[in-house]
């Protein structure tokens, strides 16, 4: 990055991360600070409106969207440790009347955490020791929506922004799964409206990791983690769950 003055980054933390997984948010903040960024968490922020829009009420999220745009208008970048929230802001938030210019600017400057690290901060590799068998679970919205990594369906050269950040860690074993990128079954309100399917998908996803001896399931989206962890806890499975920012925060000093 070459800016005349240091760019001011705003941290956007999904509502459920704020409430249930503050460590993932703290880790995101601290990683960016350790890399020399100026980061602020605007206290006024609430929600991006995704749960309502995915339930079919996008038109009713104009107020939420306006508030979101205003909260983040003054910053150079907005970084969020969730691919699905970033995708929603860019593609499924309704037009905010009167704020069209600001909305467009927001869409151009909002990034998911790993893509901000690799594409904007230009991090080529991270060094350190992390001797564990890890399974990475990219959220579908992050992977197929934001193209944070290649999809097994497409005939394309494999790539993964998260893997780039983790693969140089000493001792880390990146476990290949039977189904590389099948959905975990969270899907927002789907988790409740199609509960039987949601849980079966989650159980199957977990089984893929566990049967390949994954010790830590690392995710890019705490929504997927919340769902998988919920099942693992109920089934008394010992596999651990972390957001990728938490791993990087442990490594970086």
């Amino acid at each position, binding site marked *: 990055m070459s800016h005349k003055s240091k760019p001011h980054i705003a941290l956007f*933390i999904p*509502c459920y*991360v*704020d*409430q*249930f*997984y*503050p*460590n993932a*948010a*703290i880790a995101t*903040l601290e990683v960016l600070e350790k890399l020399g960024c100026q980061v602020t*968490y605007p*206290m*006024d922020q*609430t929600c991006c*409106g995704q749960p*309502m829009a*995915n*339930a*079919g*009420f*996008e*038109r*009713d999220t104009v*107020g*939420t969207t306006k*508030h979101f745009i205003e909260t983040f208008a003054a910053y150079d970048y907005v970084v969020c440790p969730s691919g699905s929230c970033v995708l929603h802001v860019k593609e*499924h938030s309704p037009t905010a009347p009167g704020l069209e210019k600001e909305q467009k600017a927001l869409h151009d400057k909002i990034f998911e955490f790993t893509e901000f690290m690799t594409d904007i901060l230009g991090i080529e590799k991270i060094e350190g020791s992390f001797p564990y068998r890890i399974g990475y679970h990219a959220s*579908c*919205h992050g992977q*197929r*929506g934001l193209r944070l990594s290649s*999809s*097994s369906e*497409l*005939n*394309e050269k494999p790539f993964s922004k998260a893997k780039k950040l983790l693969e140089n860690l000493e001792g880390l074993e990146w476990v290949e799964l039977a*189904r590389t990128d099948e*959905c975990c*079954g969270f*899907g*927002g309100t*789907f*988790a*409740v*409206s*199609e*509960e*039987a*399917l949601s*849980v079966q*998908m989650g159980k*199957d996803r977990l089984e893929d990791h566990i049967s390949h001896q994954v010790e830590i399931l690392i995710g890019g989206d705490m929504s997927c983690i*919340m769902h998988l*962890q*919920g*099942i693992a*806890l*109920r089934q008394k499975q010992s596999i651990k769950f972390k957001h990728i920012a938490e791993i990087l925060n442990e490594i970086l000093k």
Partner: protein
Amino acid sequence: MSHPQEAAEFLKDSAKSKWHDDTLWFIRDKRDKMSHTIPEWEELRELASSIKDNVLGNLADYLEEFERNASKNGIHVHWAKDAEEHNAIVLSILKKKDCTAIVKSKSILTEECHLNPFLEKNGVEVVDTDLGERIVQFLGQPPSHIVLPAIHLKKGEISELFHERLGTEKGNEDPYYLTQAARHHLREKFLAAKVAITGVNFGVAETGEFVVCTNEGNADMGVHLADTHIASMGIEKIIPKRTHLGVFLRLLARSATGQNITNYNSHFRSPESGKEIHIILVDNGRTAQLGRENFRDSLKCIRCGACMNTCPIYRRSGGFSYKSTVPGPIGSILSPGLDLQKHSSLPFASTLCGSCTDVCPVKINIHEQLYLWRQEITKAQGTSIKGLSMKFGNGIFKSPLSYNYSGKIMRMALKNLPKSLIYNPLNVWGKQRDLPPVPNESFKEWVKKNRP
């Protein structure tokens, strides 16, 4: 029952539903391996998508060109505005030919039009000759997958069925043995039939010919032994030029079953001497879908079924759970156009993972259209309890004060209330999942303390 209820039922037989999931994943995997052998695969998808975009923008011209050329070559062209008219046209041809027993190869369009029960009511015996279709016909079921009609059945069930209907040995589940029994049984029907009905994979405007693709050869067996061939074609199956078949035939079988081509790809241009070919061009809601800007691209579909094979929901709930002729992801964007009320749960039977869009050979933005149908459905439903609670949600999230207040209350409640209150059956999340462990403070509270 809505999709969630059907899915829950399907999952109750955990061994069978796992087998169904594994079987269809295996086919998805074959498709991947095959597509990776073609370096220009993604380019082919883009070409197919662009060709179909051109078709939809010029549909009337291409249909008229097709009719002109087909007629010139001696094919009788009929037009049907809806299913009723399609069925009436078929019956009238049969009556003219004095025919009361026909053979039919796979045509999802004729399923859509409910042709079989109509003909049977009018005294015509219909024999579906695709092996999978004959099996479900014996069982009185519709196909559960548009390419693999009997994918939901295990060989034990088929063995029992054939024992009853074809007199095969009880308990003999050998697929070769059972298939040979079907071969003998159906060969009699083929040899006797004077009229055969097929579907159409592609109609070529430039030449007035149409193409039918099968692995079994049943479409051809039927039509070449009969005197009259009736082909049913949805109006969106048109492609402009013969050379475009190169693109579509390279994509179709690879996407559908992971084969490099179907065994037989028959190009019908003129009838054999002394015989007749009729083609029925069917609308039945297609022009209405063409008029829906957000959903028009669903008409690009070439009915390969790849979206069903890749869909984690379809694999774990089965075709019948969708209660529409075309199930799965593509069915969920086509069917609401036909009956919004009946199919309102279908666009919600998805996590919007996007895998369907990535496997679609004509690059239909299926998962995007699922999202857009959700918006239409809630509008059509007007205010509902779910709607009210979502509006309320927007009220909370708009103002930071109310959001913080309710979040704190929620966290406090989770920490202090007895487990039974949280895990009661009304709390659907908690049926098979724990709630997340409750932290001492929210991130906002941590920031207030640590980054003032």
